[in-house]
């Protein structure tokens, strides 16, 4: 007979109570994707495809979880506690596990237990990049899966689609003037995307805290001018005129190909305050007034992690037991451009404290847009400009093109000229807000 100590019995009872509590309280978890829902004649696989897409052209669904997790800094200090989003429209691990038990089953995107399990401790930095097309409609469900490391916190979460034109209050994600979603419940937003450009999404609940903790990501809306042979829309445009260089993708509906590109990359600048994150991890008061960032990042990583692709990054950084070995930093900053191609950098700054100036050493940057607006005059004259430095303050987005035809193949550098941010934490020579551009 197994002798049970009182403490073991108590913890088992507590665990049982917690599980029972979670099951009944998950009634609020609900993914809404009307064209896909079985009740509406869809196939219930979580995405709008096949016949559903024909009946509802240009409609898509997305499901993000909001919760906590850990990320690795380039100086390999102990894992940094953070908050973030994760895509729970599908989960491979749960799918494999379910199929092993019953080949006809799998991840059920509408099952609250699957959703919460997929989202728990899965926060990412930067949160997943979302790519959309002009004219598409998006049902975007946000499920608050709670904070595993801080069960004492009952924070709600939201999605603020930063820059969305003519936004309504209910779908703008600012809790003080509308609604936020409590733990173990879901809120579905609806957006009809009508303006191409580079957007940001971030949490606006207790914005100073949640944004410092890392709840932000990219949204890009592609213009209708992009060549889409299947739909018979868009155009291939030669730019410059007479050069023989044909583009099929553009930053904006520019009319002349002057915002055309071949490859694109996010460049989301931000920074973390390790004292703030550690205080959050260890249930200490949060230092708002003394907030001071010491880990400057591009796309959630510091140099030299920024120059690594995802596979190499995880080999170097390892995955952390603390977050159940979820891969939490999936937006690479290694910019690789085939020689002659044009690269489109989606630049944004999510720092809660300061502006950063970005410089491109060796490759001129052409700025074609800011804040989802192409740079042009009232009569449509292009106001694109070349520069080697770009100042980006919190909340701003810029559309930057790098032309490589007149640049020799090799390795170049993109970094902040606020040189004190070229370190990870305390003392380092070359770290922080820097990445490499490889032209091959």
């Amino acid at each position, binding site marked *: 007979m197994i002798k049970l100590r009182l403490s073991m019995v108590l913890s088992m009872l507590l665990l049982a109570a917690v599980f029972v509590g979670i099951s009944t309280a998950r009634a*609020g978890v*609900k993914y809404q994707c*009307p064209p896909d829902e079985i009740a509406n004649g869809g196939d219930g696989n979580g995405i709008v495809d096949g016949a559903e897409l024909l009946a509802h052209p*240009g409609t898509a669904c997305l499901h993000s979880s909001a919760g906590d997790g850990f990320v690795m800094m380039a100086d390999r200090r102990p894992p940094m506690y953070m908050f973030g989003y994760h895509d729970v429209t599908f989960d491979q691990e749960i799918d494999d596990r379910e199929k092993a038990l019953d080949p006809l089953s799998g991840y059920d995107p509408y099952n609250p237990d699957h959703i919460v399990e997929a989202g728990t401790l899965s926060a990412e930095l930067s949160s997943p990049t979302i790519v959309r097309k*002009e*004219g598409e*409609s998006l*049902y975007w469900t946000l499920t608050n899966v709670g904070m595993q490391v801080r069960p004492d916190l009952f924070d*709600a979460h939201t999605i*603020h689609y930063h820059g969305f*034109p*003519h*936004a*309504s*209050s*209910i779908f703008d994600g*600012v*809790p*003080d*003037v*509308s*609604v*936020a*979603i*409590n733990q173990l*419940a*879901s*809120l*579905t*937003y609806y957006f*009809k995307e*009508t303006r191409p450009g580079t957007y940001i999404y971030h949490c606006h*609940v*207790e*914005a*100073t*805290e949640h944004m*410092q903790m890392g709840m932000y990501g990219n949204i890009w809306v592609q213009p*209708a001018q992009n060549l889409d042979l299947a739909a018979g829309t868009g155009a291939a445009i030669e730019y410059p005129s007479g050069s023989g260089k044909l583009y099929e993708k553009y930053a904006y*509906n520019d*009319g002349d190909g002057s915002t055309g590109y071949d490859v694109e990359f996010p460049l989301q600048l931000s920074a973390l305050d390790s004292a703030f994150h550690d205080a959050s991890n260890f249930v200490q008061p949060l*230092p*708002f007034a*003394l*907030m001071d960032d010491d880990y400057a990042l591009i796309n959630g990583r510091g140099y030299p992690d920024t120059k690594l692709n995802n596979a190499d990054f995880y080999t170097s950084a390892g995955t952390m037991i603390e977050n159940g070995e979820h891969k939490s930093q999936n937006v690479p900053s290694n910019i690789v451009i085939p020689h002659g191609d044009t690269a489109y950098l989606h630049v944004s700054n999510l720092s*809660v404290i300061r502006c950063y100036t970005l410089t491109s050493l060796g490759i001129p940057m052409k700025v074609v847009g800011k*804040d*989802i*607006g192409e*740079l042009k005059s*009232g*009569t*449509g*004259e292009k*106001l694109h400009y070349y520069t080697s430095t770009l*100042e980006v*303050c*919190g*909340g*701003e987005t810029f559309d930057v093109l790098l032309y490589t035809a007149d640049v020799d193949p090799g390795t170049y550098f993109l970094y902040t000229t606020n040189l004190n941010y070229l370190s990870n934490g305390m003392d380092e020579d070359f770290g922080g807000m820097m990445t490499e551009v490889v032209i091959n």
Partner: protein
Amino acid sequence: MNKKLKKTGGLVVMIMALLMFSVPAITHAGFGVVEGNDQSVGATANFSLTAKQDFISVPDGGVIPMWGYSDNSGSGRMLYPGPTLIVGEGQIVNVTLTNEISQPTSIVFPGHVVKTSGGTHGLLTAEAATGGIDTVVYTFTATNPGTYTYYSGTSMDLQVEMGLMGVIIVRPAGFNQTDEFGAVTPGEGRSAYGNPESAYDVEFLELFDDIDPAIHDLAALGQVVDTNTNTPFYWFFNGRAFPDTLEFDLGNATGYVPWLPTQPYDALTIAAVGQKILVRVAAAGNDLTPQHFHGNNGKLIARDGRQLVVTVPAVPATNPPIITDTLYEDINTLVATPGQTADMIWKWTGQDLDWDFYGHSKNGAMNKHEVLASTTLATTINATATSLNIALTGWGPGPDDTEIIADDGVVPSTHTINAIIYDVGSTYPNQDANAELVKLRSTGSGAYAVERGTDGSTAKPWLAGSKIAYTEHGRPFPVILPELQDMSFGGVYSGSPFLGEADSLPPGQGGLNPFNAFAHPWHVHHEKNLVNNDLFIGGQLTVILITAPDEVSPPLAP
């Protein structure tokens, strides 16, 4: 004035006349006019400012000693920021400074050529000695309309930090508050720079600043201060920190509230759907402050009192130059730099939201301003037609001349839009029981692919001359909101997702929205500035309330 905009072929058409249509305002007196000391009528404007020491309040219960300007009116107390001085283009402005703080002080007026009389010359300008007797008179001609600042020119690292700063607004010639620009008299009415490109309906000021209370305590005690240690712990918007930024005395139509006697200005912004809002932005303080406007992009139209336009000389050259192009920046985040000013025009119409943000049904009541543009069918169509020909230039004013024109008068051609086809005999789409909701997508040259009978309406034949309106009216709310217990509600939420409506709220949550308006925050996007000394929420945050315009077409009788 003669203004011409060059028309280039293609997508953008600047329709000057449309700017003359007025949108009836929610008439809340006092909203939409910058409060200040207005002496803009007459040949000269005379102000008398006294630099004084006093205190301000911050929302965490703190009190901070300040040095600021009093304009010797009302209670005579120091004001933070200094009184907004409103003058007229071409006026001679005399500012007399008296000094009651413990060190010499002066005023500089960036953007103006100043002559002084009295006082003793300091490094930058004439200074008034302490003691309250010495005076300096600063004189300049307000040659150019726009937004400017004034602040101390002595020991500026300390005195501007202490609060000795304010804003000057120069109104253009021909300005009057009551008229839509050009609607009554050509060249006259509400505009920032005296032209239709800077015309507006309502006007608000945003002045950013930050404070390090330790420096203020030391200065008030007469101690030596090392301003190199300046580390702000409070952030301000028109002299107040959130939520004081929203304190407004509705009854007396003023931002002045008795419990903030030295902080006279609020930052609450209110406008109706479709109204053009002029936002005058200025920054003091230490840091770049990126002001983010939720709700929509706006147009940055001027910096440092100069409109961002391309002009050619008029003939004769004594007439104002002719604007041939605008270099406005289409942005949602405006970086306010200490010492600089900027002017922005912002508008919200709800264009292309894809659901009826008033929550109306097809034949329910309809706000008249829901129609963004309208025209008539050129040819008769049957119930199964999948294309329409509507001349793009035929998109023009709606059923009456008080509709909202979307953004710059452009009907989008790159994505699907919602429209309603209805009987020529009905003034508004909701008055036709058989109106058909359709979706249109431009296929070029005035041709549209059309999806018929959407959102519960029935496709039917329509005769040539039937009306078609570009509007979201009648489109259903797209999602099911969670149960009340699963949501947290903001103080300003009305309980309903629809503009102008209220609905159930849990006890103690929401409801602080007298107009059931759509509320959006306008705030600095360095969120560290949204705290009051370690307490979230506070600092540089205000709210814009977007209200429903007044005119409504009643529901169709059953």
